[in-house]
């Protein structure tokens, strides 16, 4: 299996430590474009697409393997083995923060630290725990996905009307951002929103930076606080941001918090 092709792996920059960026549910590695260039001067940066998303190899999608996040975590471990140099810091958005935690559990020591952006170990409320959603909400999402894929003939993302001020965006690039085969999109939505990883993250000792938006529908503040309490070696950072993608809408605040968290992993030259 060619990992480069399977996960559309891209490598940028250089440095003693490797930052692996793993995108969340919805789009693909393009989401990191507002954040990752900030780090290429001091770090080796690896971007990749989860299988089923972006420009990954759709033929590699195995509904059995990817019926749980463990399958994605296994892939992440392989990407790290193949492309990382030196210690690895995983930057995971949304569901990828949990994929990173599972990869850490699968091979302790492989990941030196986590940066979790908008993480949630469990989206559905249960007992005392507030995840922010009910099962009905998730079915409503699956319904919305259904409605939209009906209009998007087969594998096409929303049409682009032409982007004012960004004429350079070509057809090839624009169509790939959220392109997913409809069946895969629904399966991924299920595995994302119905997973409960609270047992997996409890007591994880790896240093972790939690980037929590002040106003995030998908991962509310109470969830970030829950994670901070569950992860003994975590640093909690509240970013003033509306929405689930602070790395896109507040990249400056994110990179500032990450810079200070990443200090121990910056090379001697850069830290001076």
């Amino acid at each position, binding site marked *: 299996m060619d990992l480069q092709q399977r996960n559309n792996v891209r490598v940028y920059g250089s440095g003693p430590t490797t930052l692996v960026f793993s995108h969340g549910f919805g789009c693909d590695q*393009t989401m990191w474009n507002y954040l990752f260039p900030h780090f290429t001067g001091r770090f080796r940066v690896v971007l990749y697409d989860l299988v089923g998303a972006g420009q990954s190899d759709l033929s590699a999608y195995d509904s059995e393997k990817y019926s749980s996040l463990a399958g994605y975590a296994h892939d992440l471990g392989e990407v790290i083995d193949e492309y990382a140099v030196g210690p690895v810091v995983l930057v995971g958005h949304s569901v990828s923060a949990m994929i990173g935690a599972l990869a850490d559990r699968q091979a302790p020591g492989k990941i030196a630290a986590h940066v979790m952006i908008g993480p949630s170990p469990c989206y559905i409320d249960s007992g005392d725990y507030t995840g922010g959603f009910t099962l009905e909400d998730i079915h409503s999402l699956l319904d919305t996905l259904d409605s*939209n894929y*009906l209009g998007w003939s087969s594998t096409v993302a*929303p*049409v682009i009307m032409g982007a004012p*001020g960004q004429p350079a965006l070509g057809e090839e690039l624009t169509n790939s951002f959220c392109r997913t085969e409809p069946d895969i999109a629904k399966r991924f939505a299920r595995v994302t929103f119905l997973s409960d990883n609270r047992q997996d993250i409890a007591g994880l000792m790896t240093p972790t930076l939690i980037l929590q938006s002040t106003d995030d529908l998908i991962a509310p503040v109470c969830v970030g606080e829950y994670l901070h309490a569950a992860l003994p070696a975590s640093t909690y950072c509240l970013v003033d941001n509306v929405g689930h993608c602070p790395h*896109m809408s507040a990249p400056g605040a994110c990179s500032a918090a990450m810079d200070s968290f990443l200090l121990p992993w910056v090379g001697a030259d850069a830290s001076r």
Partner: protein
Amino acid sequence: MPVDNLPLPDPQRLFDGAPCALVVTREDGTIVQANQCFSDWTGFSLDELKERRFQDLLTMGGRIFHQTHLGPLMKMQGSIAEVKLDLLHRDRRTVTVLLNGVRYEHAGIAYNELALFGTTDRDKYERELLNARKLAEALLQEKTATEVALQQAQAELSSAYEIAQRRALFAEQMVAIVSHDLKNPLTAIKMASEFLARGERSPKERQLLGHIGLSTERAQRMIADLLDFTQARVGQGIGINPVALDLHTVTRDSLDELRVAFPKAILEHHATGSARTFLDADRIQQIIGNLVANSVAYGDLQQPITVTSHQDAQESRLSVHNHGPAIPEALMAGLFEPMTRGTEQDSEVRSVGLGLFIVREIAKAHDGGVSVSSSPDQGTSFSVHFPLRHP
């Protein structure tokens, strides 16, 4: 008057009265401007809308979709088109809309301009299509599963058939070997009993020796049948040795012997036509013997059993008729197959059920055929016909 000079309503009037919902939001979704149509669809006044975020007016599925797809796409691509969402009216009704949007920057601040078109009716139709597709997919899956199961069943059946064939062949080969091996001890028994019969014997001993002789002959007939059967089934078919003969003479001689073997039966011979033909005399006797034995076993012994031999320029024919009860309809089709018996009754003259099969095989070896008719009025008649043969 040139079109350019026509007075048009002012832009604000066009915005407010547009036949679609128009909304301008900040990047975080906060509504800064909306038109009357949007106000109507959501049930909030324009002033109330300005305190809200666009995504808060969607169903939960739409809100998640906004966060995970729509927002990032607007940011990355600067525009979006044909996204279907449900607006949530303040009284909890939903209004299905298609959304187009563009992102632009004005005085250093990013705005999203959204146009929404009501599509409730089309949405119903699309949902029907979607349901039909799901149904079609489910049916296809079911069909595929059924086909797989069918293929598997066929494979199992064909393998079971192969096994049965191998077993049958094995059993027939065993019958051939055993029958062949039984011939020698039987011959020894017969010779020994004949030798004993030559000496001085008491009436009781003589009677017992008679039984031994008859039983041995019966066993020899059965073995001969079995050997013929195995030759027909696993060998090259029954072998014949045709010679020029007169069918009437062969039949008459045969009946003379059979009258001794079946003293209780009344055997009559009818001969019609005349011509010489080429047949295997021993096999003809075997046919007559088998058919007569059959009639003795199943027929009415109070009435005559009639054997007719016929020969003309076209064919030779033998038929054996008795006045027994009719053969049940269900048995007729398989009557000439091996191991078929007319009834389950036990009888002195009953064989292993190969008689008629051997008759048919002998007929086939002569390029001839067999037929049977049976009814309560007419009795039962077996016929064998042979085309006229030349040396």
